[in-house]
């Protein structure tokens, strides 16, 4: 048996254990339901307004605007329907009646506005332009954090239960580490694909979906490679964090810097999305590029060479981080008793 086969066995176990873990399956299902809900629901709420009118002449412009129009006999009857909630609004004697909120759509349907000619229209509706990068950043954050923590936990669990002693006696440490990263990476990729698929199916059931469809393609094409390299860059560091502590309870504290590192791009996208210079810089910085570059791609103002350069920078960083993480992992793995100092783990690889 060689290192490759050992790696494959380790990766297969990571996946198998997860797929047999009921808590994991349930939380994934809940997550997917949330994604489905978030994409489908906004399109469903609201719907057409129902309007009561006294004179039939008021009906055509309202119908044209998609409202559900009911012609009633008297003003008092119309008012009663509004009060009882049977209709959203009523048009009585040229006035609009509503309960506690001005019915904008009804007002718009009844008023005349001059035609608008935008000379430089946004490719995307501004609401969506805000939501889509945020969704991309959120998706990356949730997945990177969830599966990163999983790597760290899995390392610490093996350390805490001491099964690592048997593992190290039978396979090379690098096979253990790469198997863990590859197995978890496959799971992460599978989950992200599922989430995106659910989101796309959800979107396609709404009007918004038709609008964003052409923009999602290129963003998505780049999102996967950026995600993969971004995940790989941090994976060995997560494993290293896990190898530094003796108990699963301590993984949270040991991995705090990494949690910050994956959170930072999300905060950046939220707070600096309007700052083009900052977003451009962040789309090259390897720790934020997996989030920010796909977001910029979605906005559509990116030259063809930009994601390529950014990805190359990310890949180089990932290689360096993998080597460093592997060194700490190896150094910390077999040191028992409490927290291992980073410097000790870094220096003791030959032990």
């Amino acid at each position: 048996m060689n290192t490759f086969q050992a790696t494959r066995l380790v990766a297969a176990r990571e996946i198998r254990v997860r797929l047999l873990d009921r808590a994991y399956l349930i939380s994934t299902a809940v997550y997917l339901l949330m994604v489905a809900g978030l994409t489908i629901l906004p399109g469903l709420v609201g719907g057409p307004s129902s309007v009561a009118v006294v004179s039939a002449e008021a009906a055509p412009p309202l119908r044209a605007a998609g409202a559900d129009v009911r012609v009633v006999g008297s003003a008092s009857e119309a008012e009663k329907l509004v009060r009882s909630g049977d209709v959203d609004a009523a048009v009585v004697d040229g006035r609009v009646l509503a309960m506690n909120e001005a019915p904008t759509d009804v007002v718009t349907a009844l008023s005349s506005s001059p035609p608008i000619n935008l000379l430089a229209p946004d490719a995307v509706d501004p609401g969506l332009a805000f939501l889509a990068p945020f969704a991309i950043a959120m998706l990356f954050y949730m997945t990177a954090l969830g599966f990163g923590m999983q790597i760290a936990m899995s390392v610490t669990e093996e350390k805490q239960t001491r099964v690592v002693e048997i593992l190290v006696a039978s396979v090379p440490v690098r096979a253990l580490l790469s198997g863990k990263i590859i197995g978890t990476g496959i799971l992460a990729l599978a989950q992200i694909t599922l989430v995106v698929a659910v989101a796309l199916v959800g979107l396609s059931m709404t009007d918004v979906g038709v609008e964003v469809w052409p923009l999602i393609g290129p963003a998505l094409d780049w999102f996967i490679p950026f995600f993969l390299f971004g995940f790989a860059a941090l994976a060995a560091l997560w494993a290293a964090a896990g190898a530094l502590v003796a108990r699963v309870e301590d993984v949270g504290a040991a991995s705090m810097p990494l949690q910050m590192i994956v959170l930072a791009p999300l905060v950046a996208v939220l707070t600096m999305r309007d700052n083009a210079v900052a977003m451009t810089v962040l789309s090259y910085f390897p720790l934020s590029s997996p989030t920010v570059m796909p977001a910029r791609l979605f906005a559509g103002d990116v030259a063809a060479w930009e994601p390529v350069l950014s990805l190359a920078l990310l890949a180089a960083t990932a290689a360096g981080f993998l080597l460093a993480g592997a060194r700490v992992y190896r150094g910390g793995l077999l040191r028992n008793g409490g927290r291992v100092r980073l410097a000790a783990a870094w220096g003791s690889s030959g032990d």
Partner: protein
Amino acid sequence: MTPELRIEGISRRFGERLALDEVSFTVPAGRLTGFIGGNGAGKTTTMRIVLGVLAAHGGRVRWQGADIDALARRRFGYMPEERGLYPKMGVADQLVYLARLHGLDPARARRNVADLLERLGLAARAKEPLEKLSLGNQQRAQLAAALAHDPVALVLDEPFSGLDPGAVDDVAGVLRERAATGVPVLFSSHQLDLVERLCDQLVIIAGGQIRASGDREQLRRAHAADQHLIVVDEDAGWLRELPGVRLVSLDGPRAVVVLSDPSATQKLLRAALDRGPVHQFTPVIPTLTEIFRKVSQ
């Protein structure tokens, strides 16, 4: 080449402390070798170095006459001092996984695991997660993990600790079987009576140094110190006066003596018979506990 495990001059420091000081001994093929010593004597450190889990600061481990490498170690069976398997993974599932990590193909791994679980009385629990098993049964599963890949050598750290008497017999039986197939078996224990009963070979370590090692009976005879027990009819106090005899203890007609040279035994016996009947006259063979106390001081 005989499958023999030799530890040659292994040293290991932890900071300033010298945990192992040129430790050397042999674990011959087909025999059960007991590794005994107090807490912190260096048993676990030695075993971890044999398995390559810990690096030595000097000396080497030889297997079949050559320096041991990762490939050979992978075929060893190892039971670490601190038990460890996956608590939430099924018993059979993880044993098959470990056997495969040791290089077995899936079919053989499954077959071996099924056989072992049957043999260790765990067949009914094969599908349960390990944490659902009693501690004794977890211990059996741990042994199965060391055996499932048909190891060419066994290194077991305290395989009997925490076992009830029934389980001790099961485990001892399995180890004897494995040894009988020509596998060298090294196991540590602090239960000296058990080691005495079970082992063909002994290695005694104290303070990081090997104090005694070799065949059990030879060791016992070597440490007999020429002591003899003699039981006569009446008070044996007269032995004090006999030349070449040193009285160690006296209890009425029972006396333990040390003889200055081998020829003195027959003289002593003749002198005793001249005075009356001799009920018992035998060399005193020390128990393992006595040898251990003596050499580990």
